[in-house]
């Protein structure tokens, strides 16, 4: 596996799924290698994975 950094950002409860899908598309466009939504105890989390520069 390449060196990666994963960010986890809580999503407010009133954000609709379509808006989250657009956000995922934006992250992939910006170079993320993966982006998904996880359901945590406190609600949804936007999980985005990035390659570390120079490590892949």
């Amino acid at each position: 596996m390449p060196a990666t950094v994963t960010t986890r950002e809580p999503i407010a409860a009133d954000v609709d799924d379509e808006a989250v899908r657009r956000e995922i598309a934006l992250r992939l466009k910006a170079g993320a290698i993966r982006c998904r939504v996880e359901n945590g105890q406190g609600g949804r989390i936007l999980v985005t994975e990035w390659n570390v520069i120079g490590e892949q």
Partner: protein
Amino acid sequence: MRRVATAVLIALSPAACGTARRPGFPRQSYDEDEQIKQLERVFEKPEMIADYYDPAKTPEAGRRDARDRIISGRLALIDLNYNEFVRQFASNKQAIDTTAEITAIGLNLATAAVGGAEAKTVLGAVAGGVTASKVAIDKNFFYERTVPVLVSAMNAERKQALIPITNGLGQPPEQYTLGQGLSDLDTYYFAGTFLGALQTIQADAGAKEVQAELELTTVRERRFFGKERQDRAAELVDAVDTLSNAQAIALATNPPFSNPEADKMVAAIDPGGKRLRDGGAARRVLKARIPYAKRSEAELDAWETAVRAAK
């Protein structure tokens, strides 16, 4: 005695034994070598890249097709060569094993069968040499469990490296430039090398350090996901691709808006500070940073002004 030994060696040579060309691999449905040659004739032409950037030879309307053709052609070549590469190691290992083992058995049998102490001593020494050389090969040549581990690591790494290429090919050439595509192809190629696999394994060994997780505490509110703000962020990502190396480095060195969370994220993905001296790294960092802007009017305005000014 010499005739006996020679006859045994000839009889047990790989050719005489009919050793399979590539044990463990069925015949492909196409002639791989010929396909590689054909693709090389087209995609290894040095002028291909220059032609792409020459508006007379590649007009604007044809750029996407031309980019896709170059990237997908080279991708296919890398894949075919990778298949050959992997099969070659599987073949060598098994072929050498088979050859050495059969030869050693044959020589041992011959040693027992021939008469005379001198003949037995000579054949015994040859048999010992063959067995010993096989052991040496086993110890020194990637072998035993090493090759399968490396191949698994290469396969996993190649899958990862393919993602930005397939994502990129779905975008217009202004967003996913040929330069970026070629750079991604280099990464993809490197992922299919033993050196790349070793780096992967090393990285896995320190997985806890390497796969850093950043818990961002700011809850992303509805405003953050507003379509208009997302569109502006997407346009900024596109604009970053049009920056020259110097412009990208300048902007990555001095971002126009203070954002500690984005700073933390940037420090994590570029711990070596490559963005401060390499245009490609600077563009990657800038694009990755933009989604982490808080997307207030002030922040988006600052970024748009800075990118416009940089161009």
